[in-house]
Structure formats: structure tokens, C-alpha cells
């Protein structure tokens, strides 16, 4: 009997933990949709800060080109290497080009680029806005009757959402070229056949759906980063926590939403 009584608090503790975790989850989801809703609401209000938009587009697009290109190139290369070795076993080497181009445009291009941008931009958005929050810069903006969502979040989310598709389009091209290089120059594939097969089964729909995915991922990662930064508490430690959480959360949401987007789009 006494043992049962002693065990009771431990049982309650589980419920407490589940309750706390659920509340935290609802809070995170609520913050995400609050930022998303406010961003859409403020996107069409004047003034349109062209300077901020340009700055953010350069930061997300131009500055991310090297890392995204490198990732795409090596992904295309390893994809060609793996599929060539596999397809060799049943003499289907000529289809390597199709596999590389379809995998890249439909799946790997958007997902890998989004994950790289989540690490590069999502984290920096959270750190930047988080620091501004803890040093009262966001409060100062609000006190000056400047809506922080309008000035800070709208250009960042807009630029990331707009820049992801062109980045992914370039990444797809580089990835296909990487695959071509490995298959032709390393594995000895016929370049004309490889090139022909690359485009034979590739629909425009494959490319466009991949680019739509990229835009959605851009929206997800930027809103997550901004939400994490915007609601930062707890000084420098809090900024660190927000930065890590932004990357982890954005990556998980990208991968989960990828499944549903693929189901809807293809």
C-alpha cells in the first residue's frame, strides 16, 4: 500500500511532462502561425522597403550560391556513382541520366538546398532577431510606431521565399552536370546517350513542382527562424537556444512537409 502511494507522484510526473510538452508544442505552432499571419498581413502595406528587400535577397540568394552549388554538385556526382554501380548489375547504365535528373529536380535539389539554407539563413535570422529582441531593439522599433514585423520580418521571409526557387533551379543544373561528369568521365558512359536520357523522362511538371516545393521550404524555414528569434527570451543563452532550435525545427518541418507536398504535387 505504502509502495503504491510512493509510486503515485512518479505516475503524475509523466502526465505533467506530457502536459508541458503538449503546451510547448501548441505554443510553438501558435507562434509560427502568428508570424506567418502577421507577415502576410503586413506584406501589402506601405512603405515597401526596397533597400531591405534587396539586402535580404542578396544575403539569401547570391551569398548562398557557393554552398548550395557545392552541395548540389556533389549530390549529383554521388548519385551518378551509386546508380551507375547499381544499374551496371542489370545492364541499365543508360538510365543513370534519368535517375539523376529526376531525383534532383523532384526531391534532392529542393530538400538539400532548403536544409543548407535552413542552416545558413534560418539560424542567422533567429540569431539576428533574437539579439535585437534581448537588446530591446525590437521594442524600440515598436515604440517608434514602426511595426517590427513590417520592417524586419516581411523582407526576410519574402526574400527567402522568392530566392529559394532560383537557387534550386541553379542547383538542379549544377547537380545534373556533376552527375554527367562522373558518369561520362569517370565511369565511361556514352555522353550523347546520357544527355538524351537526362531529358527523355523529365517533364516540365517535375521541375516546376520541385520549384514550388523550394518556395514552400523557403517560407517554412524563414518563418521558423523569424518566429524563434522574435520570441527569444533569456539573454545571450536564449539567443543561442533560439538559433539551434530554429535550425532543428526548420529541418524537421521541411522533411515532414516534403512528404505531404510530394503526395499533393506529384
Amino acid at each position: 500500500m505504502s509502495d503504491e502511494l510512493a509510486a503515485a507522484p512518479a505516475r503524475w510526473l509523466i502526465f505533467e511532462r506530457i502536459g508541458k510538452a503538449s503546451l510547448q508544442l501548441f505554443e510553438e505552432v501558435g507562434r509560427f502561425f502568428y508570424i506567418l499571419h502577421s507577415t502576410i498581413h503586413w506584406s501589402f502595406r506601405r512603405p515597401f522597403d526596397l533597400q531591405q528587400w534587396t539586402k535580404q535577397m542578396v544575403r539569401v540568394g547570391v551569398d548562398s550560391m557557393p554552398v548550395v552549388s557545392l552541395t548540389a554538385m556533389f549530390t549529383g556526382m554521388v548519385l551518378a556513382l551509386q546508380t551507375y554501380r547499381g544499374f551496371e548489375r542489370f545492364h541499365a547504365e543508360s538510365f543513370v541520366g534519368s535517375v539523376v535528373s529526376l531525383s534532383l529536380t523532384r526531391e534532392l535539389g529542393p530538400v538539400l538546398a532548403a536544409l543548407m539554407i535552413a542552416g545558413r539563413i534560418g539560424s542567422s535570422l533567429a540569431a539576428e532577431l533574437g539579439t535585437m529582441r534581448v537588446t530591446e531593439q525590437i521594442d524600440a522599433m515598436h515604440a517608434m510606431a514602426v511595426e517590427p514585423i513590417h520592417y524586419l520580418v516581411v523582407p526576410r521571409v519574402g526574400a527567402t521565399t522568392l530566392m529559394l526557387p532560383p537557387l534550386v533551379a541553379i542547383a538542379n543544373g549544377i547537380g545534373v552536370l556533376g552527375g554527367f561528369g562522373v558518369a561520362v568521365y569517370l565511369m565511361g558512359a556514352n555522353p550523347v546517350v546520357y544527355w538524351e536520357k537526362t531529358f527523355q523522362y523529365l517533364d516540365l511538371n517535375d521541375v516546376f513542382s520541385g520549384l514550388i516545393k523550394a518556395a514552400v521550404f523557403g517560407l517554412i524555414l524563414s518563418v521558423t527562424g523569424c518566429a524563434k528569434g522574435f520570441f527569444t527570451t533569456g539573454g545571450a543563452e536564449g539567443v543561442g537556444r533560439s538559433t539551434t532550435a530554429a535550425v532543428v525545427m526548420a529541418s524537421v518541418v521541411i522533411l515532414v512537409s516534403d512528404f505531404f507536398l510530394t503526395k499533393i504535387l506529384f
Partner: protein
Amino acid sequence: MSAIPPTQLRVGRTSQSLAPATPKVAVLDLWKSFAGHEVLRGINLCVYEGDSLVIVGGSGAGKSVLLKHFVGLITPDRGHIVVDGEDLTRADPRVSLEIRRTFGMSFQEGALFDSLDVFENIAFPLRRHTAKSEEEIAARVHECLDLVHLIGVEHKATGELSGGMRRRIGFARAIALQPEVLLFDEPTTGLDPVTAAVIDRVIVEMRDRLLVTMVTITHDMRSAFRIADRIAMLHRGEIIVDAAPELVRDLADPYVQKFLAGEPTEEEVT
């Protein structure tokens, strides 16, 4: 203002008394709690046009929370903030934005935008809220910097500024839009006594030259007596004193006397 010195004009006038003028800002029965802890418990306070009200109180007394209500950074649980007869807590977002534009707030560490230099920090509210040309903006920034005696630092990065300079740049940014009410959040906290005195002098000069209404929160009593026309003391979320500085100094209340002398009460020690 009349020829009568401001201090004499306001001696003994408190929020509770029958003041002849309509208050510029009236705080009415303001309540706020965070996670079940009551920070503000029924605050009533009036700020009159041209007044320099200083709200003093220990750490955790609720001073910053009260000040943040003035610009809508915090929404009260209950009560009202009435600015020029308009209830800020009930106003629709557009009206609230308009009211907020009539306030200028200076934050504790300056809260300068570190991605912008000094000039752009002060120009920021001008660019967002006015259609001034670059020349007009430059002239206004120069004027604001002159008011805080910091000419020649326009193109410095905010990271290069000392603590006292950051606050003065914060003041310059707060006055850029020619606000009717200036709010100062702990303007001298963390500064050495000499720099603190300089800051106080700048605040007094700003009051005299701009003829604005001022609300300052501080726990620095020396600074409070230098800049206040009226002092309100906040203790455990309530206003326990609201009077002219000379009356506060002479009050027999033991808590007030201990606070002025910088001595802790028994409760605070334990």
C-alpha cells in the same frame, strides 16, 4: 509655460488632487500580472503637459513594466492609459499607432540598431514617418545631435560608442520626430556618477528647450531630484508617494526615508 518656475507650479499636486488641467497622460487603475505574480496593482497616475515626472522604486517594483504600458509594449490586464483623452488600451491599431508616434522613448542601454550607424539610427524614424528630403533629414539629425551635445559622431558605428554616448544617441533618436511626451527608461543606470550627471543635464536641457512632457523611471535618487518636477514612488506594484521632490525629501514615511538613504528595510534583507 508661465513665468512661475515649474517646481513651484507643481508643488503638492498629485494625481489624486483636483488638478485644473487635463492630464496629457492618465494611468487609471492599471493592473498587470505575469505568471500569476502581480506586478502592477491598481496604478493611478497623471502626467500633465510640460511635467517632468520621475517614477522611482527598487528593482522589481514594476517601473519598467509601467513605462512599457505607455507605448503599448505591454497590454494591461485591467485599467486604462488615456493619452489626450484617447484610451490607448482600447484604441484600434491605426489610432494606437498615431498615439505612439507622439511618444519618444529612450531605452536603458540605448537600444540602438547595431546594423545602422549613428546617423541612420536617428534618421530611422524620420525615414519611416516623414517625407523629408535627404537634406532635411541630415539637418534634423544634426539638430538632434546638437541637442545632446554629440556633434561629429554621425558616421560612427554604434559599437564604437561609450555607454553614456549610446544613451545620448538614444535620446537624439527619441526626439527626432518632435514627440510630445518623452519617456526615459533608467537613463543613468550603470554609468559612473560624472557621466550620470552629464546625462541628467542633457535631460534637463531637453526639457527646457523642447518644452516636452517627460516621464523617467529610475532608482537613482540623485538623478531623480535633479530632473524631476514631481516624483512618484512605486513599491510592490503600487504608487505610495506622488508629490513634488521637496515634499518627498521631507516625508516622514519610514520606507521612503530608507529608500532615499539607500538602506534596505528588514523585509528586503530577509
